[in-house]
C-alpha cells in the first residue's frame, strides 16, 4: 500500500558529493567502517606534522639533516635544557595574560554587537557589518606605522595623548581586541540569531532587560558559539607575534609573548630547531588543555525542550 519509494542513493552529484555522502552515511557496519577510515585519515593528516615537530625536538640540532620520519637520537633533555637559555614560562605567562584579557574583552563587546546584529532590526545592518570588517581588508603592514604611533603616545587628539603602551601587554591587547573583534561578532551574530525568540521574550516578560536576557538566556544557550569564538580568539592571540614584535623589545618583563620565546632560539644564521620545536610543543600544551576544557561547552541539544514550534 505504501507508495513511498525508498531511495537511499539520494540524488547524484560530483565526486565530492559522493564522498561526503558516503562519509556520513553509515546505516550499516560498512559505513561505520568508512567513518573510521575517514577519522583515521584526518587524525593522521592533522597529527603527522605535530609528530614531525616531536621528531624535530628529539633530534639533536646538528643531526637535523637528511631526516627520515623517525627521530635521529632521542634527546629528551632539550625540554629541560631550553629553559637555560630562555625563560619560556615567563613568555607563556605573558601570552596567557594577553590571551585571556583579549578573549574576555572581545567576547563581552562582541556579545553586545552580536546581539544587535543577530536579533535586532535596524537600518544599515549590512553596511555596519561591512564597516566592522574594513580593517581586516588591509594587510597589517599597511597601517603598522600609524598604529605604532597611535599606541606609543604619538598621536594627539583633542589635546589628549594617545596612551603609550610600548613594552606593555596592553600594546598587544588593545590592537588585538580591535583586530579580533570582527570574527567574534560574526560568529556570535550567527549563534545568537538562532536562539528562539520565545526564550528571550519569556525572560523579558519575567523582568529582565534585553541585556539581562542576553546574559542569562542567550549566552548560555549559545555556549558552542561562544566557546568557539573564545577558543579561536584565545589561540590566535596566544600565538600573536606581529604586534608584539613591534610593540615590545622582546623581554618577558616587557610583556613579550610566547613566540618571542620560541624565536629566541634563532639567530642571524643558526636556528636551534630542536629547541624551537620543543618550546613550541611546550607552548602548545596549555592551549590544548584550555581547548579541552572550553570545547566541553560545544555540546549539542542545548535548546532541546525549550519551545514548542
Amino acid at each position: 500500500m505504501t507508495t513511498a519509494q525508498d531511495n537511499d542513493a539520494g540524488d547524484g552529484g560530483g565526486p565530492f558529493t559522493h564522498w561526503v555522502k558516503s562519509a556520513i552515511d553509515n546505516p550499516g557496519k560498512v559505513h561505520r567502517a568508512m567513518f573510521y577510515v575517514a577519522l583515521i585519515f584526518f587524525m593522521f593528516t592533522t597529527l603527522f606534522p605535530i609528530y614531525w615537530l616531536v621528531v624535530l625536538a628529539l633530534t639533536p640540532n646538528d643531526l637535523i639533516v637528511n631526516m627520515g620520519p623517525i627521530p635521529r637520537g632521542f634527546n629528551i633533555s632539550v625540554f629541560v635544557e631550553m629553559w637555560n637559555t630562555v625563560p619560556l614560562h615567563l613568555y607563556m605567562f605573558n601570552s596567557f595574560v594577553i590571551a585571556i584579557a583579549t578573549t574576555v574583552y572581545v567576547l563581552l563587546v562582541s556579545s553586545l554587537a552580536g546581539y544587535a546584529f543577530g536579533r535586532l532590526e535596524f537600518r544599515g545592518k549590512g553596511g555596519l557589518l561591512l564597516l566592522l570588517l574594513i580593517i581586516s581588508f588591509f594587510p597589517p603592514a599597511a597601517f603598522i606605522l600609524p598604529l605604532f604611533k597611535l599606541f606609543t603616545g604619538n598621536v594627539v587628539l583633542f589635546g589628549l595623548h594617545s596612551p603609550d603602551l610600548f613594552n606593555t601587554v596592553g600594546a598587544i591587547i588593545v590592537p588585538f581586541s580591535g583586530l579580533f573583534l570582527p570574527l567574534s561578532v560574526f560568529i556570535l551574530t550567527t549563534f545568537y540569531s538562532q536562539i528562539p525568540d520565545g526564550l528571550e521574550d519569556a525572560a523579558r516578560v519575567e523582568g529582565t532587560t534585553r541585556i539581562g536576557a542576553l546574559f542569562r538566556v542567550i549566552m548560555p544557550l549559545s555556549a558552542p558559539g561562544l566557546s568557539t569564538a573564545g577558543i579561536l580568539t584565545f589561540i590566535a592571540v596566544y600565538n600573536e607575534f606581529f604586534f608584539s614584535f613591534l610593540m615590545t623589545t622582546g623581554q618577558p618583563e616587557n610583556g613579550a609573548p610566547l613566540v618571542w620565546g620560541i624565536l629566541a632560539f634563532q639567530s642571524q644564521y643558526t636556528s636551534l630547531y630542536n629547541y624551537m620545536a620543543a618550546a613550541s610543543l611546550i607552548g602548545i600544551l596549555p592551549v590544548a588543555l584550555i581547548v579541552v576544557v572550553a570545547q566541553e561547552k560545544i555540546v549539542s541539544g542545548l535548546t532541546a525542550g525549550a519551545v514548542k514550534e
Partner: protein
Amino acid sequence: IGGGSGDKPEKASSDQTVVRQYAGVGANESPGIKDQLREALWSAGLSEDIYVEIVDGPSTTDQLLNQYRTWLSAGREEPDIFTMDSGWTIPFIQRGQVQSLEELLDSNTVSTVKNDFFEASVASASAPDGTLYGVPEFPDFPTIQYRKDLVEDAGYDTEGWQTEPMSWTRFAEITADVKAQNDIQYGYTFQADSYGGLACCDFNEWMTTWGGAYFGGTENLFGPVNERPITVNEGGAVDAIKMVRSFIHGEDDKYGMDIPGNIAPAATLGWTEETSRKPFTNGNAVMHRNWPYSIAINGAEEELGEKLGVMPLPYGVKESEAEYTGTGGTASALGGWNSVVNPNSQKKDAVVEVLKAKMSKEFTLWQFETLGLLPPKPEVFNSDEARNVDVMGRYMDALQTAGSNAIPRPVTTAWPDQSGAIASAVNKALQKGSSESPQQAMDKLASKLKEIEEQSV
C-alpha cells in the same frame, strides 16, 4: 627549572646611567656573558657610572629591520644604540633617521674609525658623501671550508691554501676528485635559494671572481643611482651563472661552461646558510662556502675539529684581467654589523663613551675570543692575540685573505628592490629547466635593475 635569567640578576644601580643597546654584540647571550661584556667595557676604559644594557633583539635581520623602521619613524627615544646590519644601514642614513657621528664624536675618534677599521665596513656605515654614521662592530666575510683530511688523503697538498686562492677550475677538479674517491654525498655546498643572501653574497662573489660587477667598478657601489652603468649582463656575471650551472647540472649542461661539473646538489638552489652547513658539518660534503660563525661550529672538537680546512674563495679571472676595479681574483662578500646612535637618545654623552670603549682593541679582542665575532680593525685582526684564539685562530690567514678582498654589497635606495630582483633572476637562471640562456637571463635582469634605478631616485 630556574631559567637562565635567575642566576645573576645584576641591575644598574640608581646612580648609573643606563645605555641601552639593541641587539648586536652580546645580544641573545646568557646574562653571565652580558655581565662579562660590561666588565670588558669597563676595563676598556668605560666609566663605571655607565651601565650598558644589552637588549636581545629578534633573531632574524628582517625582523630587526622592521622594528627599527617602525621605531625610528615614530621617533622613540630608546634604545640608545641600534645595531644594524651593514647591508641596510645606509637607507637609514639617507633618510636621516640615525645620528651623524661626525656631529657626536670628536674628530679624532672619527678619523680613527675611518682609517683604522676595515674600509668596506666603514663604507657600509657612511653616507655616500663619506659622512660617518656608524661604528663597525664586527665584519663578516665568507670563506670556503673544506675537509682537509679527505683532500689530503686524496693526494692534494693543502699547504698555502689559506693565503693563495686557487682557480675555480682547479677547485672543481679537486672537489670532483675527492668526492669520487670518498664516495661522499655532496661536493660543494653553498647558498643559492632565492633570497637576499644570493644577491648580496653568493652570486656577488662568483660574479666578482669572474671579473663581473653589478654596476661597474667599486666606485659605483653606493651610487649615484640611475647614473651608473648596469653591468650585470656582461661577461663576468654570465660566466658565473654558467659555472654554477655546471657545478650543479654537470659540464654537459646546455648553458654550462667547460669546467668539471656535478659537484653540487640541485638542492643548493633551495639552501640558505644553515641548510647548506648541516651536510658539511655532518661530514657529507667536501667543500662549503659560509660565514665565520660556521667555522666556529665546524672547527669545534666535537664536530670536524682539525679535519676542517679553510681557504679564500677561488677566482675565475685574475684581478689584473678584470675589467672593473675591485673585481677578479678571490672575493668575499662583506657582512657584519654597525653600531648607530638613536638621534632621539637622551643620553648621547654616555653613548659616546660606550662607542669609544667598543672600538678599543681590548674590547674587540674580547668579543673575538668570547663570542667569535671578528675584530673590525685589521690591526687587531692581524695581532698575535687574535691568532691565539681557539679554533678561529687556526684560520686567521684565510680570514685575512678574505677580509682584504671583501666586497660590500651595493647598498643604495634601490638595493632592497634590486636585491630581490637579482636573487630571483639568478635562482631562476640556475634552475635546470631554465628557459633562458644565462645571457638572456642577465640581459633581462639588467633591464630590470635599470628600471628599478629609474624609480629609485
